[in-house]
C-alpha cells in the first residue's frame, strides 16, 4: 500500500480497533462499579487523616463516621441524642460530674476491649495534646464543640482553668466518670461528634498517632501510620486500604456489636469536580455522591436510574442588624425592615427548590424550636407606618453589606439576594447604600468587628444543639449585633446549664420567642443540601448534621 495512505489508514484502524475492543471488553463501564456487596461513593477529595481527633473537614468525617463511634450518637436523620457506646448516664446535682455506663461486650477492631480505661485514655489524649495539635484547624471540635482546653496550653489556647473538661476517672471496667469545670448540657450533643470518637488506645500507641516532627514552617508532619494505615474504632466498618488519588476501601466489621452492615465493602473515590461526579454517577462508576449542585437537581430527578435525597437543613441565612448604629437601635425600624422584605420570593427564586423560609434563628429539626414565634409578613405599607411611628423622615438610609467571592448553601449567590432585598427596602421607605467586600478575610472581619450596620450572613452549625445556633449568636454581647439584652442572655445561660432535657427544650423555646420579639436580625432561609444515588441504593438516611451522622451500614444495593 502506498506509504502516504498507510499513514492515514494505520492510525484510523488503530482507533477503530480500540473502540471496538473496549466495547467488547466487558460491556463497557455502565453498572460495573457496584455489583454484589460493594458500594462506590464519589467523595470530593481524599481525607486528610483517619484520626477523628485531628480533623474537622467533612471529607475526612464521612469516612471516620463509618469506622468509629462515640459515647452517644444521633438517631439517624434527626438531632435526637441516643445511647451508643454508653448505654445510660446521670449527672451529679451540681452538674459538674457525668457518670456513663458503658456497653458490654464491645471490642475495638484490633480485638482490644472497649472499657472505661479506653474512654479515659482518649479524653486524656485530647486534653494533653502538644502545641502542634492545638490550633483550630486540627482540634476544632474538641475546643469549640466540646469546649475542652489543654493541660499545657500554647499561646492563645484555653488552659486547665477555662477548660470544660477537668478529668476522667475509670470507676470500674464499665463505668466512667467525667468531671467538668462548669455545668453544661451540650455535653451529650457534643459527644456525638466524630472528633470525640473512641479510638483504640493500643493502636494509637503502637502506630504513633501523635508522633511527628514540626518542620521549619511550624507545620506538623505526622510520622506515625495510625491515621493512614491503622485507624481502629468500634464501628460497623473496618479500614482495609488507601491509595491516595485512587480509592479508600472499608470492609464490613463482622464482629460489630450492633446490626452488621448490609454491604460488604464501601469504596471512596476522590473526584473534585462536581460535573465529573455527576457523570461518574450516570455511567455507574460511582453509586452516589454528596453536595449536588442545584442546577443538576432536574437532571437527576428526571433520570429513572437515579434518585435525589435531601438533607434536613442545619443552617440559617439571615440579615444581621447592628444596634450600635442608629436608627437600628429602634425596634420599629427593625420591624419595618422585617415587613419590607419578601422572603418567600427570594427563597423560591434563588435556592433551586431547596430553600425553606426561616421564621427564627434555627431550623425546626433542632429541639428547642418554637412554632409560635412572632412572624413578620410581607407588608411594605406597614413598614412605612412603623417608620413614621418611630418619628423618622423617609427615606431612611441604610448601609447594607454583602460578601463577594463566596457561595454557601444558605447563600448560593449573595449578590442576587442583596439586590432583591435592596429593591424591596427601597420601595418601603428606605434608601439602601450598597457595600461589599471579599468574604475572606475582609468581609468576615468587617462584620465581626461591628463595622457593618446591616449585613448578609448565615451560619452552618457544628453540632445538633440549639446552643450551637442561638447560644453562639446571643449568649454574650457581640460587636456584630451591638446590643446587650440581659433577659435573652439569662435565658440562654440557664438553658445551657439545665440538665433535664424537657426543661432545657422549653427554655430554648422561650428564648426563641423572646429573640424574635426583640428582632436582633432577620432570619430568612434554611437551605437543604442534597445527595444523589443510583435508584438501586436503599437505606441511606440523610442527617441534619451531614456526614457526621450518616452511616453506610444501613445501605443495601437492591436491583
Amino acid at each position, binding site marked *: 500500500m502506498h*506509504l*502516504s495512505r498507510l*499513514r*492515514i489508514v*494505520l*492510525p484510523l484502524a488503530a482507533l477503530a480497533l*480500540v*473502540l471496538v475492543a*473496549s*466495547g467488547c*471488553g466487558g*460491556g*463497557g*463501564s*455502565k453498572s*460495573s*462499579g457496584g455489583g454484589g456487596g460493594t458500594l*462506590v461513593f*464519589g467523595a470530593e*477529595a*481524599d481525607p*486528610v*487523616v483517619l484520626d477523628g481527633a485531628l480533623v474537622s473537614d467533612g471529607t475526612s468525617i464521612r469516612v471516620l463516621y463509618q469506622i468509629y463511634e462515640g459515647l452517644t450518637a444521633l438517631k439517624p436523620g434527626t438531632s435526637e441524642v441516643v445511647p451508643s457506646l454508653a448505654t445510660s448516664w446521670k449527672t451529679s446535682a451540681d452538674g459538674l460530674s457525668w457518670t456513663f455506663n458503658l456497653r458490654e461486650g464491645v471490642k475495638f477492631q484490633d480485638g482490644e476491649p472497649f472499657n472505661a480505661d479506653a474512654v479515659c485514655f482518649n479524653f486524656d489524649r485530647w486534653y494533653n495534646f502538644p*502545641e*502542634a495539635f492545638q490550633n*483550630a*484547624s486540627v482540634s476544632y471540635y474538641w475546643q469549640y464543640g466540646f469546649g475542652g482546653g489543654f493541660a499545657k496550653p500554647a*499561646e*492563645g*489556647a484555653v488552659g486547665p482553668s477555662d477548660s470544660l473538661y477537668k478529668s476522667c476517672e475509670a470507676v470500674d471496667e464499665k463505668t466512667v466518670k467525667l468531671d467538668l469545670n462548669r455545668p453544661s448540657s451540650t455535653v451529650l450533643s457534643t459527644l456525638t461528634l466524630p472528633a470525640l470518637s473512641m479510638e483504640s488506645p493500643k493502636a494509637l500507641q503502637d502506630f504513633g498517632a501523635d508522633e511527628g516532627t514540626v*518542620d*521549619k*514552617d*511550624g*507545620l506538623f*508532619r*505526622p510520622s506515625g501510620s495510625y491515621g493512614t494505615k491503622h485507624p481502629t474504632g468500634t464501628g460497623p466498618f473496618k479500614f482495609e486500604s488507601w491509595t*491516595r*488519588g*485512587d*480509592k479508600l476501601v472499608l470492609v464490613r466489621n463482622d464482629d460489630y456489636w450492633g446490626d452488621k452492615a448490609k454491604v460488604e465493602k464501601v*469504596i471512596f*473515590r*476522590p*473526584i*473534585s469536580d462536581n*460535573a*465529573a461526579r455527576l*457523570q461518574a454517577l*450516570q*455511567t455507574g*462508576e460511582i453509586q452516589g455522591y454528596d453536595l449536588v449542585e442545584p442546577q443538576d437537581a432536574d437532571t437527576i430527578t428526571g433520570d429513572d436510574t437515579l434518585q435525589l435525597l435531601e438533607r434536613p437543613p442545619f443552617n440559617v441565612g439571615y440579615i444581621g442588624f447592628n444596634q450600635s448604629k442608629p436608627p437600628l437601635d429602634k425596634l420599629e425600624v427593625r420591624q419595618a425592615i422585617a415587613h419590607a422584605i419578601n422572603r418567600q420570593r427570594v427563597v423560591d427564586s434563588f435556592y433551586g427548590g431547596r430553600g425553606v423560609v426561616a421564621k427564627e434563628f434555627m431550623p425546626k429539626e433542632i429541639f428547642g424550636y418554637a412554632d409560635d414565634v412572632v412572624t413578620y409578613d410581607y407588608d411594605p405599607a406597614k413598614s412605612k407606618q412603623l417608620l413614621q411611628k418611630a418619628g423618622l423622615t423617609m427615606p431612611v438610609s441604610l448601609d447594607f453589606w454583602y460578601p463577594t467571592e463566596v457561595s454557601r448553601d444558605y447563600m448560593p449567590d449573595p449578590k442576587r439576594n442583596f439586590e432583591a432585598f435592596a429593591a424591596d427596602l427601597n420601595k418601603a421607605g428606605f434608601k439602601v447604600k450598597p457595600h461589599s467586600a*471579599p468574604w*475572606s*478575610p*475582609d468581609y*468576615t*472581619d468587617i462584620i465581626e*468587628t461591628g463595622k457593618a450596620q446591616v449585613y448578609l450572613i448565615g451560619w452552618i452549625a*457544628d453540632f445538633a444543639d440549639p446552643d450551637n445556633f442561638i447560644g453562639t449568636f446571643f449568649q454574650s454581647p457581640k460587636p456584630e449585633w451591638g446590643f446587650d439584652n440581659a433577659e435573652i442572655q439569662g435565658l440562654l445561660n440557664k438553658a445551657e446549664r439545665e440538665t433535664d432535657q424537657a426543661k432545657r427544650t422549653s427554655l430554648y423555646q422561650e428564648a426563641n420567642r423572646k429573640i424574635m420579639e426583640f428582632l436582633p436580625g432577620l432570619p430568612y432561609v434554611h437551605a437543604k443540601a442534597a445527595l444523589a444515588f443510583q435508584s438501586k441504593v436503599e437505606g441511606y438516611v440523610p442527617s441534619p448534621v451531614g456526614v457526621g451522622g450518616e452511616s453506610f451500614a444501613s445501605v443495601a444495593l437492591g436491583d
Partner: protein
Amino acid sequence: MLKFAVRRLLLLVPILLGLSILVFFWIRALPGGPAQALLGERATPETIAQIERQYGLDQPVHVQYWKYLQRTLRFDLGTSVASRRPVTDELAERFPATIELSLAAMIFSVVFGIPLGFIAAKRYGTWLDHSSLVASLIGISIPIFFLAILLKYVFAVKLGLLPTVGRISVLIDLNHPTKFYVLDALLAGDLNALWDVLKHLILPAVALGSIPLAIIARITRAAVLDVQNEDYVRTARAKGLSPREVDERHILRNALLPIMTIIGLQTGLLLSGAVLTETVFAWPGMGTWLVGAIRNRDFPVLQGGILFVALVFVLVNLIVDMAYALANPRIRVS
C-alpha cells in the same frame, strides 16, 4: 554542544529564582490565606492569628521568603497545609500521573497529527485539505474542558464504552512500584489491569492532545508544502527516485525539523493543559493537585509545585533544542 547545554543550564538559576519570587508574592496577594481556607466560616481573628503564628505567616514577607529559599535549596519543599504531608512526597505521587497522561496525549497528537498534516499537504487544495484546516481550527479553538465533557458524554454516558474518572477501576487491585500505571500493569503481568488502565487513558489523552494534534497537523502541512517546492526535492525526483522514496528521505526528514520544535513547545504547554483535563477526569496528577492548592491557599504546595513545573518546562525545552541541533547540521556548526 556541551557548552551550549551548560550555558542553558546556568540560565536556569536566574529563571527559577525570579519565578520563585513571583510565585511567593503573588500567592500572598490573593485574598485570604491558608488559615482562612482551613477554618472557613469558623475563622475568628483569634483562630486565624493562632494558625498564622504557627505557620510563620505573621512574619514580614521578606523574612518568610528568606526562610523559604534556604529550605528549598536543601530540597525541602515544606509541608502541605491541607494534607499535612511533605510536598516532595505528594510531588512524587502526582508527577508520574501527569507524565503518563501527557505522554499519552503527545503520542496521540503525533501519531495522528503528522499523517493528517502530510495528507493535507499532498492533497493540497482539495476538500480533504480544506476540511482538515477547518477541523484543526476547531481543535485549537475548542476549550479543553468542554471537549472533555463532550467526549465523556458521548463515549461514556451515552455509549458506555469508556470510563470517565480516575486512572484505573476501583474494583481492580494493582501494586504501584513505579506509579506509572501502564508500567505497573506490565510488571505485574496483569493484562486485565493493563487494558483497564489504557481504557482510562484514552479520553483524557484525546482531550488533552486535541490542541497539539491540531497544531502539529497544521505545521506538518505547512512544512511539507514548503519542502516540496525546494530545489533538492526537484533534484531527487529528477534523479528518478520513486515518489515514496522522495517522501520519506527528503520531504519528511526535512519537514520534521520545524515539527520537532513545535512538539517540544507543545510538550511544555501540555503541562498547563493538563490542569483542566485532569480536573474534568478526576485524574490524580499535578493539575488537580495545584488547582486544589489554590482553593486551599496551600502556600507550600503552590510554591513547590509551580517551581517544579517551571523546572520541567525549561528542561524539556533544553532537550528539544539540543535534539533539534543534533538533527539539523546547519545549527551544529554555529
